[in-house]
């Protein structure tokens, strides 16, 4: 084989290495979004598939914004979107409140124990998500372990209602997403130079002041990454509100699921997805910028 032919073959291989995953993602990631957008502009009909085509019989464009108008005017949807933002936001803060001191503690632990402590954070992530949520059902039941223990201790005489409340949803979200908060926080806190904090204290800053003026700003990339990694998936969560939340505690992920599978209104379900995606575009872009900047800083 001549060297020119070889060079050509190598170039060809490079192209294949780029083009294969590229085409895969175009077909199975980007095109599906275009289809969601298309169907969100259609009307539901009783047919297979259950929506009107984008072009009518004469070939004219037949789209309508009815679904979006409905989402904006029907109070149920506005309230559900708002509830999802608030609940995901509170769960994010709960994860931060518990995750920050934990990540800090792990980053400051002795080097031999640090590996094991981190492993114990990651381990639940490998165990089925569904089963971890399920574990709380047995704990928070009216006749579950928590209530039985409290009654046995004489602290309460009748079971507290925990299951099927927002409280249970918060517990489930915090429990499931805590590792996503701790890992990026740990990564920044571990890199952080303790000398800065000591220098601040030597110069007369109180411990609190040193924390807010030195530790917190330095930990910010980790805080941003952790919060977004919790907030974004929590917004669309389906399993946790379904299993632990009450029937009236609707979150948008569950509304989308039910709209599609129970009401079989594909266009409305698509419109719900489009609006959810629009709500998440800003946090997703912030996350990607944050990660890119972090990667640059590391290099």
């Amino acid at each position, binding site marked *: 084989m001549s060297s020119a032919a*070889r060079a050509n*073959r*190598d170039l060809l*291989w*490079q192209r*294949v*290495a*780029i083009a294969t*995953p590229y085409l*895969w*993602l*175009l077909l*199975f*990631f980007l095109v*599906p979004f275009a*289809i*969601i957008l298309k169907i969100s502009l259609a009307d539901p009909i009783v047919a297979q598939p259950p929506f009107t085509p984008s072009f009518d019989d004469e070939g004219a464009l037949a789209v309508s914004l009815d679904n979006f108008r409905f989402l904006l005017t029907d109070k149920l949807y506005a309230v559900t979107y708002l509830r999802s933002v608030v609940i995901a936001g509170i769960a994010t803060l709960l994860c931060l409140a*518990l*995750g920050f*001191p*934990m990540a*800090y*503690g792990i980053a400051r632990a002795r080097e031999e124990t640090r590996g094991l402590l981190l*492993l*114990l954070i*990651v381990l*639940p992530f*490998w*165990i*089925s*998500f*569904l*089963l*971890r949520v*399920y*574990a*709380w*059902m*047995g*704990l928070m039941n009216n*006749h579950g372990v928590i209530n039985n223990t409290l009654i046995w201790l004489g602290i309460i005489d009748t079971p507290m209602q925990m299951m099927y409340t927002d409280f249970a949803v918060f517990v489930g979200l915090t429990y499931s997403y*805590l590792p996503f908060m701790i890992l990026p926080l740990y990564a920044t806190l571990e890199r952080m130079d303790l000398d800065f904090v000591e220098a601040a204290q030597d110069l007369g800053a109180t*411990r609190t002041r040193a924390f807010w003026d030195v530790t917190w700003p330095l930990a910010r990339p980790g805080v941003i990454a952790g919060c*977004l*990694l919790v907030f*974004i*998936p929590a*917004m*669309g969560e389906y*399993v946790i509100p*379904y299993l632990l939340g009450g029937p009236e505690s609707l979150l948008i*992920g569950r509304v989308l*699921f039910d709209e*599609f599978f129970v009401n079989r209104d594909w266009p409305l379900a*698509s419109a719900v*997805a489009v609006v*959810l995606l629009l709500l998440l575009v800003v946090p997703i872009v912030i*996350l990607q910028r944050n990660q890119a900047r972090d*990667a640059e800083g590391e*290099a």
Partner: protein
Amino acid sequence: MNRTSRLITSILAFGYAFLYVPLILVVVYSFNDSRIATVWGGFSTRWYGELLRNDQVLDAAFLSFRVAFMSASMATILGTMAGLALARFSRFRGRTLFSGMITSPMVMPEVITGLSLLLLFVSLQQLTGWPGQRGFSTITIAHTTFAMAYVAVIVQSRLSSMDESLEEAAMDLGGRPLRVVFDITLPLIAPAMVAGWLLAFTLSLDDLVIASFVSGPGSSTLPMYIFSKVKLGVSPDINALATLIILFVSAGVLIAWLVARRARRVA
């Protein structure tokens, strides 16, 4: 010990208890003889026996493992190519879109990914007749798509933390790019590929929402089966199934960790 570090130690203890007590209780209650899952009725292993005689569970588990094996393997191939492209082929047309498409599936809410892929499969079926039936193939494609993102990120970060000089030296010595990739680069990133494969395998076994969208009637994965039972409340045979998964995964992760630690010590 000063006040701050005592506070942090107690929060750490609380945090780990929060993470592990629920799992430990599931394991304990799986050995409960009573049919009512919350009342202790003596030690028994009968639920494990019932689990092994339950064909629905075995079928679902078999489907889940087939999908996980296939999608993890495809995701590793595609993800490694993507990671190489991002880390080593510095400039090509549409790079921004490419890296955006790589990272987005990881944070996309599952309901959106699931819905969009199902709508794609329905449209494809209308246009081409494929896929005639939704099940193994559609779930595998869906899982490959979101898992390849994880593999790509792992491979890319391994490549960018790696010195390029070995590859450059091989090229200087007359190695052709393709050979250098196979003789130098791939062996060096093999640990990252293994880690990526394992992660993809676990993510696939774990997924409920996306599989619920893209599977058809008659093909239930293990999480879909568990969800259909768990909806009705706590049940003892699910405790047994959960225990098997928890013990299996914990043992696997622990062994992998010990092996990796020993390898680091030797090196």
